[in-house]
């Protein structure tokens, strides 16, 4: 089991009333409400949290990035990854992930990631994402080509990591006269790639085809099982058997010394008016062409207020009840985690431990409790249940490095 810590790095000091008055807290909500004095304080708080994570023996730190919104103030995930590469010694630096379609020059990303891998002495996990819908808009990147750009940028980065330059790359969206970066990853054949996601079937299938672990981002147990069924089916079609080493799960868990404090702090998971990414116009989250065409009809109905959000909208109490948010003392949350492990069988688990305005003192205490009282038990259970991480099972970095592929039926000539 690989266990890691995650925070969205909330810009919790923004003027909430201004957001409510404007009616949106994303994309066009003015950055005049961003206070850099508070920003400086918070960035350093998050760095202190990450150092605590290493101190208490947690395996990894999960990082991400978002743009134009207070729900996440990390605008470039490789910045914190580079900082952590230098100031930590043992933790895995798990980027989930770099939004590939937003990159105009994926070779630059390949260089940055190679530098992080070398500086960290081989501790990088380089996840990739498509980027949120509104990030296509904030970056000015065509949402209709999002998936094509994702795959093409991925292929270019992996080629830059694994094939000696110089070479020329003439793609549909990326053209490079000379690819020859003088920085290549320390880990061979290349750093592990994990793919986080929520609902896109296309991404689950693509991840399974690459044999990259898929990290389900706080999906319900029922939806998570559907994701694994699709992953397992695709893996079988590709000739391998998938297992816990292919499965990751991000859970929202806040622990404190007493239940009342834990529940009070866990309520902050809904600090953005109950929306993960804050208030926003639906068309920002799903610009035309970004979403799966199979979801077009359901989405347009939602976008004009004729139906509920296909992703669902639960109250805080409902989320506590269903286990989508776990809060309490370590002893109180452990049985819920055990249930999650038994039902979804992940080999990678990220804990999104706090959000919003949780104090730095409580955040650090939560990390300490996770490291010393929660995760040791989770590790024991993971051994008992056979939930091995990709590192423990030494699984191949990509399908092409597999040595265990079953031969499929041969097509007739």
């Amino acid at each position, binding site marked *: 089991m690989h266990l890691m810590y995650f925070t969205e790095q909330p810009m919790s000091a923004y003027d909430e009333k201004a957001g409510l008055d404007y009616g949106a807290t994303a994309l066009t909500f003015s950055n005049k409400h961003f206070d850099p004095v508070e920003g400086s304080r918070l960035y350093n708080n998050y760095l202190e949290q990450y150092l605590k994570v290493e101190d208490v023996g947690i395996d990894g730190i999960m990082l991400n990035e978002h743009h134009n919104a207070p729900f996440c103030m990390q605008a470039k995930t490789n910045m914190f990854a580079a900082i952590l590469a230098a100031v930590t010694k043992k933790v895995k630096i798990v980027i989930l992930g770099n939004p590939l379609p937003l990159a105009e020059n994926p070779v630059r990303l390949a260089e940055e990631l190679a530098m992080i891998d070398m500086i960290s002495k081989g501790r990088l996990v380089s996840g990739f994402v498509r980027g949120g819908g509104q990030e296509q808009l904030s970056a000015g990147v065509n949402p209709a080509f999002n998936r094509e750009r994702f795959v093409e940028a991925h292929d270019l980065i992996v080629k830059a990591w694994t094939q000696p330059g110089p070479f020329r790359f003439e793609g549909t969206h990326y053209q490079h006269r000379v690819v020859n970066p003088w920085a290549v990853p320390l880990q061979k054949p290349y750093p592990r790639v994990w793919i986080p996601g929520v609902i896109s079937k296309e991404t689950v299938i693509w991840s399974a085809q690459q044999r990259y672990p898929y990290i389900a981002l706080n999906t319900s147990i029922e939806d998570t099982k559907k994701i694994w069924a699709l992953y397992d089916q695709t893996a079988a079609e590709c000739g391998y058997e998938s297992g816990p080493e292919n499965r990751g799960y991000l859970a929202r868990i806040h622990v404190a010394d007493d239940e009342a404090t834990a529940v009070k702090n866990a309520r902050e998971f809904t600090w953005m008016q109950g929306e993960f990414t804050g208030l926003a116009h639906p068309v920002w989250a799903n610009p035309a062409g970004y979403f799966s065409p199979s979801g077009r009809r359901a989405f347009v*109905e939602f976008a004009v207020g004729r139906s509920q959000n296909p992703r669902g909208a639960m109250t805080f109490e409902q989320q506590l009840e269903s286990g989508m948010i776990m809060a309490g003392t370590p002893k109180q949350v452990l049985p819920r985690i055990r249930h999650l492990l038994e039902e979804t069988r992940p080999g990678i688990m990220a804990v999104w431990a706090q959000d919003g305005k949780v104090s730095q003192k409580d955040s650090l205490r939560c990390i300490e409790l996770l490291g010393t009282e929660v995760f040791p038990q989770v590790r024991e259970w993971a051994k008992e249940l056979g939930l091995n991480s990709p590192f423990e099972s030494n699984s191949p970095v990509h399908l092409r490095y597999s040595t265990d592929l079953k031969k499929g039926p041969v097509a007739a000539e």
Partner: protein
Amino acid sequence: MAPREVAKLVLVGAMGIKPPEGDILDQAIISYIDYPQAFFHERKSFEAHYGNVTTDQLEAWDIAREMSFRIAWKPYMYSQSLPHLLGAVKAPALLVWGDDDKVVPVSAAHRFKTALPNARLEIVKGSGHAVEMEKPSELAKLVMPFLAAK
């Protein structure tokens, strides 16, 4: 472009040129209904054409939106080259713009008139961007004699 193939040219609220003043309305950040409503001078004109918008219509608009992004995402709905190419169009051109075009600013009409060597501009009062839907008779009165003239 093959300008000699064009005998006469009618452009109604056309996109394609960067407006010297203002911007072409960006449909990417507004709703499926707000965008087509902006095509009309009066709300009642929109309602007369679309009434209660059906889900089929919304879906069609989303597909149209996706195609617009595919072909004209950046720069949005105009070409940097077009003003220079238009100089080769010797055919008579009629430019028609609504006086309340909230989608393509009327400054673009004046830019078209400058770029096309043989163009005339007519502004239709009380019309938005979709002149053909909001003031069809007025548009026909301009277009028919223009096309009929030798």
